[in-house]
């Protein structure tokens, strides 16, 4: 175990891996935030974690079948994401990295928007203003500066620290352990500190930046990364959805109330591959993955809820709910049309631009010159899609013959479809 992972660093945790609940006195202040939760909230946390994992497994299967260009699994990080997502206030803005499917779920993003992007229909496409959940950022760390700029805007607008909950706002930005090495993250911590922005940096330390362990990204634990800039930090057990909720809620409240930026390091683990193009067996051991599976965020909440008397019916219902979601997104993915080529040109500029107009006019004429015959690439795509649809409807007619079975054993395992043991298909 590296220094990063040593037990010597204080870490906020309310639910142990065994599902035992306690509020240690040193975390009493955070524990207060749990009083905001009703029983329904606990159940919602579970249901959403289970849903997003089922979604994740289905997306992996879709990628394996060639329906997505790539998938980016977040399996293992549901506690960090669902907890923090619900800790964000209703007026706050969220700047994700590219693995925050769970956070997206908590803020009403249509999960199909994420699949569209990974199928190659567009580069995002949800409305970041209306949802307050900004677009995924693929250039690592770039979003942290946008978040800080946005938070500066909140400050200039005086939209914080007024005590009016309907008016005050804060910003949360998500960043991974690997991305903290990017200069933009340091610059955003600096700008946040200098401007005392209403902002929280939520660092999901999932231990691996593709194949590089966190120890190769930092010598000092990441919760301390902001200290030198003037951004205080705290480490939480990111696999404890309650700690993630409470600590996020408190620091978002503090930020919204004018106490400046803070950093949360959520210690978690990327159980799956970096993306479906990755092969973790090349760089990490099975033992390590198994050790982390024993700290799974969903299993521990399940244990806790069962101890509280929540019956099997609820868990069955959640599983059925997840399967329904998986079925829906599968059908919707197959039905996604190829976007019209005009989309390439449409949004490059907000105002008319002669070069864009000229090239779109040329391409329109060129495409039209094929008259009746469809463009070769479109034809090929349609053939592939028709075949896939046939397979899909066959599977729907006969649930026993699940054509995803080779990839996904639907045994109810929490790790359906994960290629933790290898399986790059590239």
């Amino acid at each position, binding site marked *: 175990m590296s220094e990063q992972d040593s037990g010597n660093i204080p870490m906020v945790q309310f639910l142990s891996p065994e599902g035992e609940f306690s509020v240690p006195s040193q975390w009493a202040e955070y524990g207060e935030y749990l009083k905001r939760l009703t029983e329904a909230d606990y159940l919602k946390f579970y249901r959403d974690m289970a849903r997003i994992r089922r979604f994740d497994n289905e997306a992996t299967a879709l990628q394996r079948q060639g329906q997505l260009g790539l998938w980016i699994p977040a399996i293992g990080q549901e506690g960090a994401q669902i907890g923090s997502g619900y800790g964000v206030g209703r007026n706050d803005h969220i700047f994700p990295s590219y693995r925050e499917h769970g956070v997206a779920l908590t803020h009403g993003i249509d999960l199909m928007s994420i699949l569209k992007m990974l199928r190659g229909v567009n580069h995002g496409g949800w409305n970041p203003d209306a949802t307050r959940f900004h677009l995924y950022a693929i250039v690592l760390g*770039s979003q*942290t*500066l*946008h978040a800080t*700029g946005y938070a500066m805007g909140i400050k200039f607008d005086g939209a914080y620290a007024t005590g009016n909950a309907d008016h005050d706002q804060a910003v949360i930005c998500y960043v991974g352990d690997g991305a903290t090495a990017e200069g*933009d993250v340091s610059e955003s911590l600096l700008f946040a500190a200098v401007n005392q922005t209403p902002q929280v940096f939520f660092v999901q330390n999932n231990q691996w930046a593709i194949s590089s362990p966190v120890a190769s990204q930092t010598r000092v634990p990441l919760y301390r990364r902001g200290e030198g800039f003037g951004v205080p930090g705290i480490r939480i057990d990111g696999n404890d959805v309650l700690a993630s909720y409470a600590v996020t809620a408190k620091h978002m409240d503090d930020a919204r109330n004018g106490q400046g930026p803070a950093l949360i390091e959520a210690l978690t683990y990327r159980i799956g591959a970096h993306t479906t193009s990755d092969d973790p067996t090349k760089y990490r051991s099975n033992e390590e993955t198994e050790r982390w599976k024993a700290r799974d965020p969903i299993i521990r909440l399940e244990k806790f809820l069962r101890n509280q008397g929540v019956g099997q019916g609820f868990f069955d219902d959640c599983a059925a709910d997840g399967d329904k979601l998986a079925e829906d997104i599968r059908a919707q993915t197959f039905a996604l049309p190829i976007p019209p080529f005009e989309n390439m040109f449409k949004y490059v500029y907000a105002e008319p631009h*002669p*070069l864009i107009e000229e090239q779109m006019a040329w391409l329109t004429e060129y495409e039209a010159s094929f008259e009746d015959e469809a463009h070769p690439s479109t034809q090929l795509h349609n053939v592939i899609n028709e075949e896939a649809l046939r397979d899909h409807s066959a599977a729907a007619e006969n649930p026993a013959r699940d054509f995803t079975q080779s990839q996904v054993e639907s045994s109810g395992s929490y790790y359906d479809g994960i290629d933790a043991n290898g399986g790059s298909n590239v």
Partner: protein
Amino acid sequence: MSNFQEMAIARAINAGLRKKMLENPKVLMFGEDVAELGGVFRVTEGLHKEFGDKQIFNTPIAESGIVGTAIGLAMRGYRPVTEMQFDGFIFPAFDQITTQLAKMANRSEGHHKMPVVIRVPYGGGIGAVEHHSESPEAYFAHTAGLRVVSPSNPNDAYWMIQQAIDSDDPVMFFEPKRRYWQKGPVNLDTPPLPLHSARVLHEGNQVTIATYGPMVTVALQAAQIAAEEGVSIEVIDLRSLSPIDFTSIVESVKKTGRLVIASEAPNFVSISSEVAARVAEQAFYHLQAPVLRVGGFDVPYPAAKLEEIFLPDADRILEAVDRVLAY
């Protein structure tokens, strides 16, 4: 009667900025040393005193941070104007400019507009140390999603900075730093042209010189010298480098049949290259000689004692003019 005032380019940019900041409190000006000092070239002088920290402020010395936070502020509804202290210091921000600012409208399918202006003092001729005299405009003109402009005189500077701020797209605003103190009349009432139009500054019928930014003055000198020798040169100031007003250039070439393109930037894969290619496409049968480019050499910008020989002067332009006439 229009209201004219004589001012230098630096002052004209300042006046244009001030007008927009007065009009709209969402117009922000920030960068390194732009507040009390007024920037290292004093372009923003006096604005901090008038508008205070709310609208103009200094940032940490972190160019990526400046542009990245400008993007976030634009998402929030602000219209940020940022200053890169020198051309050679823009590169720490290159990623935020090209992968984020330029693509945000496209990525968000039009949800985000990016009314961000990045002011860049550029070009050589001031005897500076390394990284203070460069012409990086082609990098940005090559990037879809950005607009790139460069005024060459006070009237354009005054109006183009305002038009850039009004634009809902990101605008790279290249300021010819060795001409900052060059004076000229500014029409305070009426803008001369739309932001992306070129302009014929000197009419002629034998050779067209297309140029922009700091080289406009040199091209006008060349036209003057040529006129004394009985050669009639038309000088076109491109003003906008992305998009480029090819219509105006082609129209001029149809008249003169000869084109020389002049810039401080090295010729290889440059604005000049693009103009030459387009003219070959659109005015091939009107050309009476190959298109020639006069630019900096394809070397790192030299030490100050060599810049006089690096930068094209009127003689270098006229040498090219002689060649196209002799063809």
